[in-house]
């Protein structure tokens, strides 16, 4: 790794090469600590929300409060101004970062402040407050230990609630030894904490002013809600006579009555604690005497609330970015993101904000180009069920990507024939390739086996890598020699005619492009198990349903694909057939994403209710009809034994279609060990891209290790539901990987 690359140097990723550099930096230096810490938060969060019996109702309530508060924001701000000034406080709305800096600097200079203590505030990072104050000759002491580390190291935050999450204890020791002239032992967390506490205690007692952020603000009485675990924010509010709080305008809610839901959601969603050590509610200036150590001049308490617009009112007018204003900065979306877990916010983040939600914040409070790191959002959607205010973060990123695509202008438009180009078919070539994979695959299938032979040639792979960014190290699935739609149709025709009449259910098997062009055995297995359960199956024509386009931010194309697919499926639904979808990412389009892409709300609802993953459907059918799975499938017939390792697909988990597969396999008598990783790292086309290959494989490490762990007492057959998960697992283990339907087809007694 080049020693010259520092986190600061790669903070701004408006140039895409910087993103690649930042990934390299993070994988080399920061990955281990980030992985350990985010995964701990993530595990604890699952535990904490499981202890909230009305978690979903709380989320609805919090979402509702935020929606209404943002809608009423101008009125709430006026009410808040009145509340603050009535108590003798000062209230200021800063239009931009410079105004916020100037106001705070001037307030401090008016009081001849020489030393200011600060609690953690992302908004102060956003407006670059420290630099301005230091330039004015004011010493700034960051008192949150993570911010203290960052101040010593001169780095930007890498996580919204744990800004130095990328630092291991060992690296902190090395940093402090380098920066402080001390003989004190600094070799344990206790040593380091004691060292920082003692330095900072002096600062608290000598400070003339304190600056904090605010997690929420109540318009009715000016109450601040402040969440922390170290006690430094309480010290900052208590010790010096002058208190300045800085926060985004979006933090305002009507009254303390609205705080309750957030108190219960915030810590649980963030660190995974029931509550953080300290959650304070105060209306400064507080009714407690300030401190006067060492002859420090004694002033009466004074309070300033500085609310920052800095683009937030424009976000409010933007139907997409407005969603980000609901964010309560809990970090659940960061901690549940496989890419974030692996590189953290110095790669998957900008100058202040990071992770899935960070792109919207960087774009909203800065420039659109600053959101380019959101390329690392693969759309895996694991953050979606974790968000306490129900923000559809992948959809935010799809939109940001669409806007970035428009900026990048066309390189090539109609390379791919047979497409009526929607307005976004002018993105960069790699995006066009991955978004239009169906056209490439259709051609490959027409030309198979020639195309497969060509595809294995080093020269072809070099060309593909240079032109569309498809990494040479990735093995490509071979194209079938004939379209599977025809193979499947003949299999369907081959089913016994008598069974159709006594059919338990009638379904249409949607010919998704991934299975159609790359999953021959898998699909035949699905046909076989469905028919074994006396399900009448017809196969639809093959259409791109829009996932590939959506993932490249080509929303117009995705909409066109969605409309065509919906029209096709409508026909089958009208026949009373449920829809079976083999590829989970395509199924998730129908169950989750189409609400953004289709205008017909009724069709969206019907698709959500009537599209199923094959094993999910089978399990539901068996359960509903009180049929024992073992009547159809017997694990002991499986040649390689009943032990399986199953990896469910990320989007399959998000739409709740994963547990049924495990349940059915277990009911058939299999011994199933499951992965608990959020995503395999391949995430559709993400891991095939040259720029992201290393990251993708690093993400996969967790999965590969879980396989090894589950096999300590003997080997297991590897099973995965998603086509790219299969590829990733195969790449990481160098072993064959089966689809669950293949396992069932092999043990089917009929």
């Amino acid at each position, binding site marked *: 790794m080049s020693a010259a690359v520092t986190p600061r140097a790669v903070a701004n990723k408006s140039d895409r090469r910087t993103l690649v550099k930042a990934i390299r930096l993070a994988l080399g230096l920061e990955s281990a600590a980030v992985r350990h*810490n985010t995964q*701990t938060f993530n595990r604890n969060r699952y535990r904490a929300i499981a*202890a909230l019996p009305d978690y979903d109702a709380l989320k609805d309530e919090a979402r509702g409060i935020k929606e209404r508060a943002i809608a009423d924001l101008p009125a709430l701000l006026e009410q808040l101004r009145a509340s603050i000034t009535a108590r003798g406080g000062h209230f200021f709305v800063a239009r931009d970062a410079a105004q916020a800096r100037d106001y705070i600097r001037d307030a401090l200079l008016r009081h001849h402040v020489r030393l200011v203590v600060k609690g953690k505030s992302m908004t102060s990072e956003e407006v670059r407050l420290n630099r301005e104050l230091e330039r004015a000759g004011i010493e700034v002491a960051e*008192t*949150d*230990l*993570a911010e203290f*580390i960052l101040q010593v190291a001169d780095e930007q935050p890498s996580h919204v609630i*744990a800004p*130095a999450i990328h*630092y*291991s*204890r*060992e690296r*902190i020791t090395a940093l402090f030894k380098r920066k402080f002239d001390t003989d004190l032992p600094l070799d*344990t*967390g*206790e040593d*380091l*904490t004691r060292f*920082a*506490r003692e330095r*900072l*205690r002096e600062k*608290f*007692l000598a400070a003339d002013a304190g600056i904090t952020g605010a997690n929420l603000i109540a318009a009715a009485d000016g109450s601040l809600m402040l969440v922390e*675990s*170290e*006690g*430094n924010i*309480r*010290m900052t*509010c*208590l010790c010096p006579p002058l208190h300045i709080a800085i926060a985004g305008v979006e933090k305002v809610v009507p009254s*303390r*009555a609205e*705080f*309750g*839901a957030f*108190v*219960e959601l915030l810590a649980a969603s963030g*660190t995974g*604690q*029931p*509550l*953080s*050590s*300290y*959650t*304070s*509610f*105060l*209306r400064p200036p*507080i*009714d*407690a005497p300030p*401190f*006067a*150590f060492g002859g420090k001049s004694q002033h009466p308490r004074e309070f300033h609330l500085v609310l920052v617009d800095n683009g937030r009112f424009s976000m409010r007018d933007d139907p997409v970015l407005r969603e980000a204003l609901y964010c309560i900065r809990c970090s659940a979306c960061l901690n549940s993101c496989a890419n974030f877990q692996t590189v953290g916010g110095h790669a998957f983040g900008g100058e202040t904000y990071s992770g899935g939600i960070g792109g919207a914040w960087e774009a909203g409070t800065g420039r659109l180009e600053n959101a380019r790191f959101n390329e690392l959002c693969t759309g895996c959607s694991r953050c979606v069920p974790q968000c306490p205010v129900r923000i559809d973060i992948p959809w935010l990123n799809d939109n940001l990507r669409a806007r970035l695509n428009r900026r990048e202008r066309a390189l090539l438009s109609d390379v791919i024939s047979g497409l009526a180009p929607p307005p976004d078919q002018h993105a960069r070539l790699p995006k066009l390739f991955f978004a239009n994979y169906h056209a490439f695959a259709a051609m490959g299938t027409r030309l198979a086996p020639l195309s497969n032979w060509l595809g294995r040639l080093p020269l072809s792979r070099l060309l593909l890598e240079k032109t569309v960014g498809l990494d040479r190290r990735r093995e490509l699935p071979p194209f079938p020699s004939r379209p599977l739609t025809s193979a499947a149709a003949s299999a369907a025709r081959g089913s016994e005619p008598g069974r159709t009449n006594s059919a338990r259910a009638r379904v249409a098997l949607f010919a998704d492009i991934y299975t159609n062009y790359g999953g021959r055995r898998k699909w035949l297995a699905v046909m076989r198990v469905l028919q074994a359960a006396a399900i009448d199956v017809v196969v639809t024509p093959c259409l791109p349903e829009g996932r590939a386009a959506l993932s490249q931010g080509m929303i117009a194309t995705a909409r066109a694909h969605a409309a065509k697919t919906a029209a096709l499926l409508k026909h089958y639904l009208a026949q009373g057939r449920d829809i079976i979808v083999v590829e989970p990412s395509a199924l998730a389009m129908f169950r989750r994403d189409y609400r953004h892409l289709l205008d017909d709300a009724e069709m969206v609802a019907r698709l959500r209710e009537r599209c199923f993953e094959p094993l999910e459907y089978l399990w539901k059918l068996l359960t509903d009809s009180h049929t024992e799975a073992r009547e159809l499938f017997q694990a002991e017939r499986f040649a390689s034994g009943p032990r399986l390792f199953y990896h469910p697909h990320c989007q399959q988990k998000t739409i709740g279609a994963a547990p049924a597969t495990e349940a059915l396999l277990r009911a058939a008598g299999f011994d199933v060990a499951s992965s608990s990783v959020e995503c395999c790292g391949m995430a559709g086309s993400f891991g095939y891209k040259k720029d992201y290959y290393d990251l993708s494989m690093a993400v996969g490490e967790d999965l590969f290790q879980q396989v090894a762990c589950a096999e300590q007492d003997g080997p297991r057959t590897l099973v995965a539901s998603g086509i790219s998960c299969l590829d990733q697992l195969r790449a990481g283990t160098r072993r064959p990987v089966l689809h669950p339907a293949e396992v069932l087809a092999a043990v089917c007694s009929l």
Partner: protein
Amino acid sequence: MSAPPAVSSLVEEFERAAVATAATVERVPRSAAALNDALLRATAGCERIVFAEPEALPEDLLALFRADPRIISNPSDDQLSLAQAGVTEAFAAVARTGSICVRLRGMTAADSLLAPLHVALLRAETIVERPRELFDAGAAGLAQDFVFITGPSATADMGPLVRGVHGPHRLHVIILE
């Protein structure tokens, strides 16, 4: 809503949750002698104690402890910063999370924060089931400045979890039954 849980079950739930946050908890009968004994045990080894007069507890309950010579009355700021224990009232608590609610007013704000040991006095009947009840209509959390304290101050910023950062290293809750 179902009937509110009995005080005794809330006390038990609170105690379990508080212990899980690394606080220590002791239940004491409501008498001056018993409370004084509990405070002596809790502050054993401390030579300088700061004590914020409770607002809701009956005065006579603290008659014995108030006479403890280790208590610095009207401490200067320097004395405050050198105290080894701070004793304050908690006006409410939350069973589910093991949190106590402490006013941020007068000396209670400093006494619950600056010393390495914080001892909180809690009336059993003020324990509620969940945090949000403090913000229900008419509840005690709506109209005063206060803090939910959940265990001692802590950080994971220096690598492993460390208890005792800028706030107290130890939290001891005395529940008056």
